[in-house]
């Protein structure tokens, strides 16, 4: 229910505030580099691959290799941008409509089953489809339609085809809206001098550092931690996008994207950059050597240990290298977030 639930982007209102004192611009080059060479290309790639996905579905909605490949390319682009969760991705619940995961209570298969069982006509119109449960929208919902046997036979072929096209059309429009907002509005807010929601350079750097820090946390806690479960109760079936065999791939894509961001946030500090590279390389080597695409190995102690070692390497980046990047930028994690009560 994307349009009834409102996500307020409070920073918009800060437009009215007088400009802050942060005109120092010590990190102008860093911010410009991140916006122009990290953020914008990722959302352009997401919009481009999503357009190709919709075109592929319109050409042939059969859940075969061609459509799966187009979906995989767009999903790759999303995972490679999904740490940038502020501004345009958060308006109108766009990010959740692209990526309804984790889905601990199985809302996505339930919502899809309901649409198919009712032959819900919402699939006939873009406006109506944008109003269905967001659990039935986006890349993870499409994965069920393209890879899950349960959905391959459900309902009629014509309805499944219409549903798939409704999903790809929605993805195309959403990713285009995000890219457009980035180009037309949000990039200008971040670029020096800070404007819009950002009062000063420190707030811009805080936002960018937050994306790095939260991206690492999500990969560690969620992409790896969810299937790991506990030692006594590993939960392989909670792995991300396991139906399409993409669980480990998402870890690798996110590490590559976060490494690119961390390198750029290291700026011209060669020593810091070398540390960042070493930290990420360690984790990326472990991931590449894992040979366990959906973390099925967590079910036995030695397999779980190997995933845990990868998780520790990601946590190490967060605690050491990313923390040093934060120190360079003069930003750190929140006061309340670190230590609640």
């Amino acid at each position, binding site marked *: 229910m994307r349009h009834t*639930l*409102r*996500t*307020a*982007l*409070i920073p*918009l*209102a*800060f437009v*009215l*505030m007088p400009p*802050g004192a942060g005109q120092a611009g010590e990190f102008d080059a860093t911010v410009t580099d991140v916006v122009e060479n990290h953020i914008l290309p990722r959302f352009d790639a997401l919009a481009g691959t999503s357009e190709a996905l919709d075109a592929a579905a319109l050409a042939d909605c059969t859940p075969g290799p061609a459509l799966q490949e187009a979906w995989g390319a767009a999903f790759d682009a999303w995972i490679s941008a999904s740490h940038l969760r*502020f501004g345009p991705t*958060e308006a109108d*619940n766009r990010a*959740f409509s692209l*990526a*309804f*995961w*984790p*889905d*601990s*209570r199985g*809302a*996505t298969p339930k919502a899809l089953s309901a649409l198919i069982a009712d032959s819900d006509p919402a699939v006939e119109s873009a406006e109506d489809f944008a109003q269905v*449960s*967001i*659990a039935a929208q986006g890349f993870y919902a499409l994965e069920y339609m393209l890879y899950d046997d349960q959905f391959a036979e459900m309902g009629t072929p014509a309805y499944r085809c219409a549903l798939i096209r409704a999903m790809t059309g929605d993805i195309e429009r959403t990713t285009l809206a995000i890219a457009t907002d980035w180009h037309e509005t949000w990039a200008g807010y971040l670029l020096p001098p800070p404007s819009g929601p950002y*009062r000063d350079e420190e*707030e811009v750097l*805080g*936002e960018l550092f*937050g994306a790095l820090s939260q991206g690492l946390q999500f990969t560690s*806690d*969620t992409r790896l931690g*969810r299937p790991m*479960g*506990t030692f006594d109760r590993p939960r392989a079936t*909670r792995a991300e996008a396991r139906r399409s065999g993409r669980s480990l791939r998402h870890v690798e894509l996110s590490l590559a994207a976060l490494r690119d961001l961390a390198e750029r946030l290291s700026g011209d500090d060669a020593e810091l950059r070398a540390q960042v590279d070493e930290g990420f390389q360690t984790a990326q080597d472990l991931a590449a050597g894992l040979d366990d695409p959906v973390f099925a190995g967590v079910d036995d102690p030695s397999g779980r240990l190997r995933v845990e070692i990868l998780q520790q390497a990601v946590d190490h980046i967060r605690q050491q290298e990313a923390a040093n990047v934060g120190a360079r930028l003069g930003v750190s994690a*929140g*006061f*309340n*977030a670190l230590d*609640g*009560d």
Partner: protein
Amino acid sequence: MTSRRTFLAGMLAAGALPTPTWAEAGDPAFLSAARAPDGAYRLCGLDARGQVLFQQPLPARGHAAAAHPTRPEAVAFARRPGTFALVVDCRSGRIAARLDSPEGRHFYGHGAFSDDGALLFTPENDYEAGQGVIGVWDVASGYSRVDEVPSGGVGPHDILRLPDGSFVVANGGIETHPDAGRAKLNLPVMRPNLTYMSAAGSIRSQMELPEEMHLNSIRHLALSDDGLVAFAMQWQGDEYEAPALLGLHREGQEPLLAMAEGPMHDAMQGYAGSVAMDAAGTRAAISSPRGGLVQIFDTATGELVEQVAEADACGLSCGAGGFVITSGIGHVIGYDTGSGRSDWQAASEMQWDNHLVRIG
């Protein structure tokens, strides 16, 4: 809210104004503990638009405060397991009195005055017994300790006075001991509850959640004018199995649990830091500083209706048109639930701590 201000206006007209009054303290609308840029801790009074009216030094990190119903006096509590609470005269900044928890007790960081302002009630830990108590302090005699009653559970964290003058206590269920810092000692057997007690402090009834939610520590409370209690929880189990973090309850009835769908619920990371209810009692908000998110629910249906993204958001209070939100990076935001936008914002050098306490 009928209120102390209308009441005082009446008194003024009648020429019977008792002294001193909150007006003399600049009529702050809110109190919040904070960390100042120099790293020192403060209690601040804020006006209705988030501007700092006064600040008073605290010897250590504060948590929440209780405002006296009529006198311009606030009791600022140390963060658990702190043993001090300071009575601050909000006109002069003078420390009017200091409360030290008795031997074998520490505060949890919250407190509530009796209806007439004569007594102060403070949730405390009787840590050798591993039981919660409510300390009772006599205001007129300079906040002397006069009594202590059982809280009805372990780890009583927050307490609020209900419209009829009785109280509701959030027994968080988690046993701690100062020797072990903030370490949680009883998770496998914890049983949080809401305990309703009379104005005199005798337990009247209790609400416990189902057994499968026993790891959901009931921690903070908010209240509508007609006595609907909103309670915010902090899940101690697997983050991806976290149940609802907000509940709504009227004494003697079944609670209504409120949560968002799928990843929107997960975005709260199993943790609600503060809770508030709007003036009409139709919306309840919980904050997750970890998720940088405030979620606002319909109190009748328990459905998520709005969310506000704000980094390190934690303090929440009822405000004109909706809610006031504070953050650890110094923002104070007046959020209007009607328009879905912020009406106003204030920025400060202060890092606002967990709670924003409304006066009046």
